[in-house]
């Protein structure tokens, strides 16, 4: 009986596993972007966006990886030498739980790296990638 329950619950978890590490707050933030988006989000696209070298932003920061390291699980560093906790939800489970803060950082960093605001699609893909890591 117990075994059956375990099998069922595991199956349910796997089925729902799209954002494996996200809590209720993170889900709410994702829902916000989902409502604004036309299509669905892809962690794969988010990964490519994270690693890409962009133009149009500040020369010192052409990529997310400039400060956040090549892997979203790495500890980054600000220009003023403060550590930046990993972006991956598996490492920083409290991240992306506050929409205002998420928007603040998308605003600053998209302008610095891309020289423009990010689209809803880019933001959603980026979050999907981070939620999966």
């Amino acid at each position, binding site marked *: 009986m117990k075994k059956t329950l375990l099998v069922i619950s595991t199956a349910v978890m796997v089925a729902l596993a799209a954002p494996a590490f996200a809590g209720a707050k993170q889900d709410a933030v994702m829902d916000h972007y989902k409502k604004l988006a036309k299509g669905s989000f892809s962690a794969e696209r988010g990964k490519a966006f994270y690693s890409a070298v962009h133009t149009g932003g500040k020369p010192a920061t052409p990529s997310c990886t400039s400060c956040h390291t090549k892997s979203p699980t790495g500890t980054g560093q600000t*220009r*003023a*030498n403060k550590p930046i906790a990993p972006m991956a939800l598996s490492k920083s489970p409290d991240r992306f739980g506050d929409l205002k803060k998420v928007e*603040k950082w998308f605003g600053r960093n998209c302008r610095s790296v891309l020289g423009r605001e990010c689209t809803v699609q880019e933001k959603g893909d980026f979050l999907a990638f981070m939620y999966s890591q």
Partner: protein
Amino acid sequence: MSDISLISGANHGKASARGVRIWDLPVRLFHWGLVAGVSTALVTGFLAEEWYLYIHNWAGYTIAFLISFRLIWGFFGSKYARFASFIFTPKETIGHIKEFARGNSAHYSGHNPAGALMVFALLAVLLLLTVSGVIILGGQENLGALAGFVSFEIGAFLVEIHELLAWSLMLLIIAHVAGMIIESRISGENLARAMVTGNKKDASNQPITMPVSTIVLRAVVIAAIVGGAGFALYQKYSAVPASGLVKLVPNETYNSECGDCHYAYHPSLLPRSSWQGIMANLENHFGEDASLDAETVKSLSAWLNENSSEIWDTEAANNLRKVSPKAPLSISETPYWQSRHSEINKNVFKQTNIGTKGNCIACHSDAKTGRFDDAAISIPPPKPNT
């Protein structure tokens, strides 16, 4: 037997190879303790890095204790320790110095008139040095017994006088040692050795007569009174909150919004005009986009406005108020910051565990309080690249 002779107060005039007892043990301990304290204070004051200040302070407290003890011992000590035994008229003193200059010196068992003058001069200069030192410590550093009572301005003013006194002290020490050597030559008595053993060889000297037990008992009582009173006064007055520091209400918004990217600079480190300039241009914040929503900007601006350098009387606030006309928003561009960090190799700031000039807290462990105590400075050793 020889051990006893060192602390023996009197040997009743018996001329022996050991000589006759002139300087009691407290006088000798005072003298050599003072040599140690003054040497430490001079080296840490003139040569050592800022963060040796606390050793300088301890040397100062030791000196203050010793001279306070000596001033009392001058009334209760054995014969030659008493001020009454070496107070001479100006005529006597001038006469002695004149003779001394010609290479003659009348015989004195204790201090001769020139030596006596030196004792009083040294005591006076050391008294002024310790008093001015405690005032400076309270005014400039907001530390010590007078932190709650002295303004930065008074402390800064007395620094000059403290330094002048220290130079005078060094001249006096040179004259004291030179006079001692010359007098030793003239009299054939090794005076430095006499201050170690307490004895003079010349049997014509009148020995001290106070019994050892009396000397020890009196010295212990006086030392306990001086030490206890000093400690009690220090405890009482150093408990008064430092006058230069303001009670800062912690601002969580400031600590997270600003402190997420850099050490959250203490608001006392810049004047109002600079903080307002910074808050008005967060879109280009020293090359970074640090934009915030209008509401947050408004609340942080108000808090910085209320707590800027104008309301603090610390060393950092007083000196950093003068900003660079070219870069009025930057702390590390202020003339004071630049001069205080001029001796630090540029590569030190690039160390992985420091990174930037703006990372105050990497070396100033008390940066969050705005105190920036000299004793709280510690440059971390470079970390090997891993």
